[in-house]
C-alpha cells in the first residue's frame, strides 16, 4: 500500500471530502480518503433510541463506546460532521456572493449564484433535501422533496410573525420526507444531531463513501490523523503524512493531487503545520493571512414560552428538530 500512488488524496471524509471522493470515483479516478476518526456504523453506533436509565450516570452518550473524538461539535469519524449535523441545507443567494457590494464588508466572490445553481440542483437531487418552494430571492428554491409540516409552535409564531409583516417558512433539510434511493423517509424519532440510525438524514459515509468503496476506486484510511501535506522538490504536493490514532505509528499516503477538506479550523491547521524550507509559514500562506480573521459557525438562540399552548396535551412533535425558518423582516 505504501508504494501505491493514488490519483487523488483527500484529507477528511465529511460533506466535502466524502462527496468529492464519490464523484471522482465515478469518473474513474482512484482516491485515498484519509480520515482522522473511526468508522461509524449508523445502525448500531448511535444511541438515538436509548433511554437515560440504560446508562449508569443517566446521560445518553452521543456514541457507543470506542468512538473517541466523535462529538457533536467537531466530529472525527468516517462521514465527519455529517454524521451528527442538523442537516439544514440552504442555498447561498446572489446577495451572499456579493457581500462587499451590499454590506461593504468582506470580499465579493468571484462567481455568481447562477454559476453554482446547477451544482446545487445536482447535489440536492443526489442527497435529498426537503423544503417548500417559497420564491424568495435571498433563499433560492431548490430541487426539493415535500416539506415536513410545521409544529403547533411554528404555526403560532407564523401567525404572530404575519401580523408584523414577517415570514416563517418550512425548514430546508437534507433529510428525506419521502423514501429515496433505498433510504427510508424520516420517522421523526428525535434529535437529528444525535445521529440518524436509518440514514433518512444525509451523511457522507452511507450515501457517498461506502458505495464508492464497493466500486473499488476509493480506499479509506480511517483513524489516520494527517499532520502534514508533503511537497516535492518540483513544488508539487505528493501526498500526506499521518499518525495512526490506535497503532501510534506514522504512515504516508501518496497521490498526484491532495485535497484538504477536514473542516474549517483543522484544514487551516494542517496547512500551517505543513512547513518546509520552501514554505516556512506553511502551505498556501504566502500572504501570512492563513488562519487569521477566523469566523466560526455563528450560533445563538431565543427561547420563549408560548402561552397559547399552556394546558394542551403534550405531543410527540420534537422529532426532526427545526421545522421552520424565521426570515428577517
Amino acid at each position, binding site marked *: 500500500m505504501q508504494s501505491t500512488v493514488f490519483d487523488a488524496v483527500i484529507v477528511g471524509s465529511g460533506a466535502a471530502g466524502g462527496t468529492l471522493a464519490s464523484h471522482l470515483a465515478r469518473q474513474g479516478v482512484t482516491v485515498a480518503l484519509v480520515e482522522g476518526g473511526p468508522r461509524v456504523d449508523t445502525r448500531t453506533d448511535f444511541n438515538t433510541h436509548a433511554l437515560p436509565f440504560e446508562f449508569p450516570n443517566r446521560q445518553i452518550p452521543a456514541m457507543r463506546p470506542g468512538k473517541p473524538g466523535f462529538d457533536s461539535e467537531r466530529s472525527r469519524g468516517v462521514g465527519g460532521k455529517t454524521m451528527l449535523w442538523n442537516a439544514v441545507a440552504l442555498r447561498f443567494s446572489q446577495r451572499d456572493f456579493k457581500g462587499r457590494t451590499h454590506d461593504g464588508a468582506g470580499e465579493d466572490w468571484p462567481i455568481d449564484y447562477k454559476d453554482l445553481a446547477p451544482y446545487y440542483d445536482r447535489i440536492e437531487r443526489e442527497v435529498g433535501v426537503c423544503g417548500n418552494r417559497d420564491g424568495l430571492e435571498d433563499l433560492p428554491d431548490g430541487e426539493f422533496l415535500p416539506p415536513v409540516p410545521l409544529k403547533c409552535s411554528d404555526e403560532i409564531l407564523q401567525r404572530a410573525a404575519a401580523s408584523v409583516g414577517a415570514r416563517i417558512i418550512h425548514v430546508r433539510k437534507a433529510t428525506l420526507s419521502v423514501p429515496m434511493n433505498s433510504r427510508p423517509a424520516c*420517522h*421523526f424519532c*428525535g434529535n437529528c444531531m444525535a445521529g440518524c440510525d436509518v440514514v433518512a438524514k444525509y451523511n457522507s459515509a452511507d450515501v457517498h463513501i461506502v458505495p464508492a468503496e464497493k466500486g473499488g476506486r476509493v480506499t479509506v484510511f480511517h483513524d489516520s490523523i494527517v499532520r502534514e501535506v508533503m511537497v516535492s522538490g518540483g513544488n508539487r504536493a505528493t501526498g500526506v503524512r499521518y499518525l495512526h490514532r490506535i497503532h501510534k505509528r506514522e504512515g504516508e499516503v501518496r497521490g498526484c493531487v491532495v485535497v484538504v477538506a477536514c473542516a474549517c479550523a483543522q484544514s487551516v491547521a494542517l496547512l500551517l503545520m505543513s512547513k518546509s524550507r520552501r514554505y516556512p509559514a506553511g502551505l498556501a500562506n504566502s500572504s501570512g493571512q492563513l488562519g487569521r480573521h477566523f469566523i466560526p459557525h455563528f450560533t445563538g438562540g431565543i427561547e*420563549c*414560552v*408560548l402561552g397559547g399552548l399552556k394546558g*394542551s396535551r403534550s405531543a*410527540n412533535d420534537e422529532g*426532526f428538530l427545526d421545522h421552520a425558518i424565521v426570515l428577517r423582516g
Partner: protein
Amino acid sequence: MTKASSITPSFFAADEYAVLVRLTDVIIPETDTPGASRAGVPEYIDRVVTANKEHQPLARAGLAWLVAEARSRFSRDYVSLDESQHAALLQPLSDAVDRAAREQQQARYRSAPGGRIYYVAVTDAAQPARPAVAVRKDSSEAVMPERFFRLIKNLTADGYYTSRVGLLEELGYSGNKYLPGFPQCSVPEH
C-alpha cells in the same frame, strides 16, 4: 424497607445513607407512583457524589446537620421523624432554594409585550447540553444547609426523572418513537 437501602453505597456510610434514603423520599414521596428510593435515586446520588469530589464535604456536612437538628429540635433520630417534623425542618430550606431559583429565572427572562410570549431569553445554542451529573452552581453566600438542600433536591429530581419509574411511569414519556408520519398540529385554535 426498600431496595435502595439494601445496596452498599460507595461514598456514604451506612448511617448517612439511611438519612439520605429518608430525605429523598420526603422530597419525592411514594404516591400512586413509587417514591424516590424505589426509583433508585439514593444509588444515583451516591454515584454522583462519589464521582464529584466537590460535592462530598457538603453532602456529608448536610446529612450530619439533619441528624443534629432532629436530635436537638425533636429529640429523635432523623429517620424516625414524622411528616410535620420533616416539614418543619425542610420547608424553610426548600422555600429559600425555590426563592433563589425564581430570582435567577427572573433575571434571565423578561416579560414580552402582547402577553402570548411570556418569557424571552437569549441563550447560547453553542453550549452543549448539561450532563445529568452536573449540578447547578451554588451561590456562595447561601448558608450550608440551604446549599446542601439545593444539591440533594436537584440530584433527587435529576435521578428520579431519568429513572424508569420517573420517566416512563410518572411522566408517561416513552422515548424516541418511530412515527409513521409527522403528527400535525392538533391543538384547537389558540
